[in-house]
Each structure stands twice: as structure tokens, then as C-alpha cells.
């Protein structure tokens, strides 16, 4: 009997071979930004090869051709679900290189803006995950919540998706006068939608069975692969850049770091769900604590002069022309600064030679390490498990491929 032999190879004996299949880039689950080369044994994934780079737009090269301030619109397109966060990360890196400190009010507004970015990123991610597991109604509830949030973002920065809100040494504009009230209205609506979303999914056994114990990774492996953000925190490692290296005013704010225990998809989902609550809490605190004051540094080198100054003051005007045409001259040196983006640690490594453009602008994309660890997370599981795992990694093409 062939079955009794020790080195019995089923595939060889039965003259079958694994099914090799291309998943993506034009596949509903891969959003056109990634390709999986799968080797399937029935429905089980035997091998997976992740191919990224379908959304490569030469961001880092493009930055070398722009002035320091002209890079902001490009950073919007890194993690396009949370544009403000990238703005903040880049601005903080440049400010660290220059060595300037923004006023207190500016810091608070930056925290508000970046938490709104985090909210929008998490809403998008969780909604997309729900949709890909078939729960389209839950998807649309969070998309609706995101829509209200974007209305809010639009009211202070003028755009819904590509915010371009932060500047070196400050912001483009202050919050509108009625902002705290409208924020409260939006948060009330969003909390209701959040409850509906949570009730639809988190108690539903179908959803629980799909998410629990799939795509798990141990804390040690996660650290080795360079995980950060919700995926690392789901493993039980309380690492959050906002707490471990507080930037802006995060050390003055009271919020919790949600962590999971096993590092599977369900923990990642819950961690993100809880971060939405924490973000709303942070924004509410900020709106209470926010002081009066200027929003830009009062240094002519690092701010746009007012139109009145340009019209009335010759020096201002000449300085403005020089600043715009040659670019603001950032001192020589190199710097790395990381912030907590909605997928994890978003780092900017900048090198300056004292000219108006960076020599090198390298981004540490948070979703890249997770994507590279995808094979060890899904190997041996079913094809259907790839979907929630890939969703919870939250590969954003613009950020991962740059």
C-alpha cells in the first residue's frame, strides 16, 4: 500500500500538482497595488510571493527636485487615507533639522489634525476589512462616518483628501471659529455609527470566526520583522511613538494604548477600533486645552509673510521672492524623525546640504515590514484567510511603494 510508505508524496502518487495562481494586481482584494503569486494546494496556501511596486511614483526622487516646502503636497499622497499625518511627520522632521520650535497653539492644532488623519485612516481600513468579508452595510456606515470627518477636515484645510495643511514652522490656516461645536456634532454622529458598526460585527459569530486565530504572528517575530503600530500592539507590545518618544504635545494628553494578546487579525481589528475611541478622546482634550496664540513661528525665514507686509515692506518682499524662488535654506545635516502614523512608525530621514532642496528624502513606510512578513503569516492557512490578514496589514500602495 502506498499509504504505508514513509515518504509518501500525495501529489506525486496521484499525478496532481499545486495550482499556481496570480492574485492581483487587478483583483478586488488587492486594490490594484500589489500582486500575490500563490501556490495553492486545494484551498490551502502552500507558498506566497508578494510583489509590490505597482504604485511606485518615485516619491523620493521627486522630492530631490522640489523645494523643502514644495514637498508637502507630495507627502499627502503617501498614505492617502490619512494625508495630514504625513504632512505632520515631514514638517516635524524638517523642523528638527532646522532646530525650531513651533508655538503651542500650532502644536495643539497639529495634534488635532493628525488625530483626525488617524481617524480617517482607521475608518477606511476597518470599513474596507468589513467590506472584503462581505459586510457591505458595515462598510458604508464607516464610510459615512469618514465622510462627516472629511467635511470637518475640509472646513479648516480646504481639501478632503489632499490636505496640504502643515507648513514648515506652522500651518496654512487656523481653525475656523465654529470648529469646536461642529466637531462635537460630527463626533456625536460618528459615535452612533461606531456603535452600529461594532454591534454588526464584533458580536457576530461569523465575523469572529473569520478573524480570530487567522494571520497571527508572535511578538518576537513581529519585533524581528520590524512591525510597528496596531499590528505590533496586537501582539501585546505596548509600543507607540506617541508614548515612547512623545512629540508635539502628546505628553500632556491623557490617552491609553490598546494592546492585544495574540497578534491575530481580530486583535488588530480591536486595537484599531479602540484607537478610534482614543483619537476622539485626544481631540476632545485638545479642544479643551488649546491655548490662544500664534500658529506660525515668528521667524521671517520660516513663514510666509502676510500680504500686507509684502505690499508695504520692501525687505519683506525681496525676502519673500528669494524664499520662493530659491527655496527656504535648511541648514546642512541629516535627521530622522518618526511619528505614529495610522499604520505604525512613519519615519522621515532627510539629508540637507544647505540648499533649497533636500539631497535625500527617505521615508520609512509603516506598512512595508508588515507586507514583507505576510508570507509567514498566511502560509499554511486557507485562501480566504489571506483577505482579512492583508486587510489588517493595511498595505497602502502609495505609502509602501512610494
Amino acid at each position, binding site marked *: 500500500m502506498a499509504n504505508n510508505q514513509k515518504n509518501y508524496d500525495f501529489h506525486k502518487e496521484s499525478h496532481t500538482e499545486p495550482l499556481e495562481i496570480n492574485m492581483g494586481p487587478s483583483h478586488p482584494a488587492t486594490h490594484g497595488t500589489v500582486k500575490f503569486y500563490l501556490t495553492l494546494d486545494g484551498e490551502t496556501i502552500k507558498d506566497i510571493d508578494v510583489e509590490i511596486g505597482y504604485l511606485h511614483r518615485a516619491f523620493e526622487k521627486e522630492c530631490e527636485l522640489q523645494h523643502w516646502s514644495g514637498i508637502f503636497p507630495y507627502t499627502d499622497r503617501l498614505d492617502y487615507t490619512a494625508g495630514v499625518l504625513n504632512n505632520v511627520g515631514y514638517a516635524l522632521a524638517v523642523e528638527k533639522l532646522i532646530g525650531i520650535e513651533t508655538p503651542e497653539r500650532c502644536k495643539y492644532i497639529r495634534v488635532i489634525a493628525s488625530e483626525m488623519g488617524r481617524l480617517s485612516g482607521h475608518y477606511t481600513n476597518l470599513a474596507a476589512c*468589513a467590506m472584503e468579508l*462581505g*459586510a457591505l452595510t458595515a462598510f458604508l456606515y464607516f464610510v459615512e462616518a469618514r465622510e462627516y470627518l472629511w467635511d470637518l477636515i475640509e472646513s479648516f484645510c480646504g481639501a478632503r483628501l489632499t490636505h496640504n495643511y502643515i507648513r514648515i514652522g506652522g500651518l496654512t490656516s487656523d481653525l475656523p471659529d465654529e470648529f469646536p461645536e461642529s466637531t462635537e456634532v460630527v463626533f456625536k454622529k460618528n459615535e452612533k455609527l461606531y456603535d452600529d458598526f461594532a454591534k454588526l460585527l464584533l458580536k*457576530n459569530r461569523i465575523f469572529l*470566526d*473569520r478573524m480570530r486565530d487567522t494571520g497571527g504572528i508572535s511578538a518576537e517575530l513581529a519585533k524581528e520583522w520590524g512591525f510597528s503600530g496596531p499590528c505590533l500592539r496586537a501582539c501585546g507590545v505596548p509600543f507607540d511613538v506617541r508614548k515612547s518618544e512623545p512629540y508635539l504635545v502628546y505628553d500632556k494628553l491623557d490617552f491609553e494604548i490598546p494592546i492585544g494578546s495574540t497578534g491575530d487579525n481580530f486583535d488588530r481589528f480591536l486595537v484599531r477600533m479602540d484607537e478610534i475611541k482614543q483619537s476622539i478622546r485626544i481631540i476632545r482634550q485638545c479642544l479643551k486645552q488649546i491655548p490662544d496664540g500664534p500658529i506660525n513661528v515668528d521667524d521671517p525665514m520660516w513663514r510666509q509673510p502676510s500680504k500686507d507686509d509684502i505690499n508695504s515692506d520692501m525687505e519683506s518682499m525681496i525676502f519673500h521672492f528669494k524664499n520662493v524662488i530659491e527655496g527656504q535654506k535648511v541648514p546642512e545635516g541629516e535627521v530622522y524623525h518618526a511619528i505614529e502614523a495610522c499604520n505604525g512608525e512613519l519615519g522621515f530621514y532627510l539629508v540637507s546640504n544647505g540648499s533649497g532642496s533636500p539631497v535625500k528624502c527617505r521615508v520609512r513606510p509603516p506598512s512595508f515590514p508588515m507586507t514583507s512578513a505576510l508570507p509567514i503569516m498566511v502560509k499554511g492557512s*486557507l485562501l*480566504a484567510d489571506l483577505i482579512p490578514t492583508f486587510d489588517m496589514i493595511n498595505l497602502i500602495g502609495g505609502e509602501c511603494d512610494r
Partner: protein
Amino acid sequence: MIGVVDLIEVLVKIGFIVVLLVGVFAPVLTWVERKQSAVMQDRIGANRADVFGFRIIGLLHAAADAIKLIFKEDFIPRGADRTLHTLAPIMALIPAILAFSVIPFGGTYTFGDREVNLVIANLDVGVLFVFAITSLATYGVFIAGWSSNNNWALLGGLRASAQMFSYEVTMGLTIIGLVMFYQSLSMVEIVAKQDIFWHWGIIWHWPAFILFLACAVAENKRIPFDAPEAESELVAGYFTEYSGLKFVMFWTAEFIEIVTISALCVVLFFGGHHIPFIADAKLIDCFSSLGANIANLVAMVIGVTVFVSKLAIIIFLQMTIRWTMPRFRYDQIMKLGWKMILPLSLIWIFVVGLGMLTNLIPRI
């Protein structure tokens, strides 16, 4: 010897069913699914198609879709089996319509000396016939997946055949208790016995109803059991490579199956055309002042209307399930079918048998 009048009667009934299914239910259901889901999800939904400025809250989209799909290119991928690829949607559509032939959509009415029974074929084994016919739909689905020469379609076809075969067994077993209760396999007889409200299937057999509905939704491959066509996993599953009119056929088959399942539910569990507490004879009596023939006609119209309204409610329930639930994983579907629903339905058969033996459940 079949008389001309008999022939006309059967043709009228067939015409009514086909028009109702293909002409009314299938297009309206596409509209209902869009509009209901939209309103449920805080949206407005499709309402742009118009004829001379009349939009009729988006109802014309069904017609617009049909026209668009009919004129689309009929694409057959390279390497596909042309014959089977063309045959598959037909094989999926025909059983769906055929299953309706034994479902009574009204009672028995007398016009003069002629008895009209509102069912196309009054088979003694109607229940078995429905299951036999619906299991044929598996072939259409599987052949579609196989003949498309596409890996996703093949995976979808495999999943579909495994799922449909497993759930057929279970679906049959879920209503054995009901058949024992009514002591008949004939649909007409089952409906006739539900004349009294306390004899409705749902009252005595509500666990069977839940199990049956779960199996039926799984049989129809809709969320939460839509693993064979899971959009985010298998692109579109077994009909990935279908376009134009063939795609319409699959689509129509799916919607007609919804109607068939709902009709089965109505007939087996919700008393068919009966209004609660009002028996057929009583209803005809109410209108007896108009003359026997007209009274029968009025009762017939009321009966069919009641049947269709019940149908609509069950369809609405199914649609809500489709828009509320996430999707099962493929192995979980199998586990649910074989390890939960099958034992539960067997237990239910046992319980019903025990109940009838001890006269706790009445014999009717």
C-alpha cells in the same frame, strides 16, 4: 385524454408563472436589492435612468440594465469549452424556473362544474420534485466554473458544487419533520392542511424553518454563504468569465431562486395563500351574494395577492440577511452544514416523531 380547456388552463398558469418570475420578480428584485440596501446604508440608490424625464424612483434601472447587458459583447475566453460555456447558464436558469411548477400559488376554486387548482402540476411528490430539480442547478454552476478555463472560476465552481451538494442533503432532512406532520409530500395537500392557522408550519416547526432558511440561502449561494462567488476572494467565482446575456441568465437564476425559496417557505411554513383565521370556504362565503363564480374569482384574486405579499415579506427578510451578514469561510460553511445543521435536523425529526408518538403534536 387531455381536453382543450385543460390545455388552455395549464398554459395560462405557466404563462402567469413565467411572466411573474422572469418579467416581474427578477427585474423588480434587482431594483429592490439596490434600493433597499441603499436606504439601509444611508444612501439614496440608483435613480438616474429616465424615460422622458420620468424616473419612477429608479425602477427603470432594471430595464436599462437588461438592455445594456443584452447588447454587450458575448465573450468566450480563449481555451474555454464553447459548448459547455454556452450551456451552463441555461442549465442554471431552467431548474430555477422549473421548480416553481409544483408550488401552489392559490387554492382550489370551482367555476361552474370545473375545478381550477392554482398549481401547474399537482404532483404527489411535489416536495421531492423541488429538491430534485434544484439539485440540477449545481451542474450549471459547476460546468460554468469548469468550462471557463479560468482558475478563479474553477475554484468557485469547486466550492459551489461542494457546498450545494452538502446543503441539499441537509435541506431535504430539515423538512422531513414537516412532511411527517402533514403526512403528505404533495404541496397542494400541505397547503390545504394549513387552512387552520394553528396548523401552520411555522407554529409547530419554527426550528425547522430556521434550519431550512439557512440551507436555502446556502443553496442559493448568497451572503453569508456566498463563498463560491466571494467577490474579494475569487473575483466573481464561477461566473467570472461571463458577460452579456449569459451573465443575465445567471443573475436571473439567482433572483428566481430567491423567489422559489421564499415560495417554498410560504407554502411549507406560512400557510400558502391562506389568510390567518379565515378559511377558504369562509372567504368564498363572504362573497356568495355576488354569485358562486364571481365569489370564487374574488377569492382567487385575494388568495394570489396574499401569497405574493407573503412572498414579498420573506424576500425582504432574505435581502436583509444578505446586507447584514459578513461572509463565512469556505471550511466553516462545510462545518456548519455537516456538523451543526445536519445533526440538528436529525434531532428535529426525532423530536417530531416522539411528539407524534406521544400525541403532543396533533395528527392532522
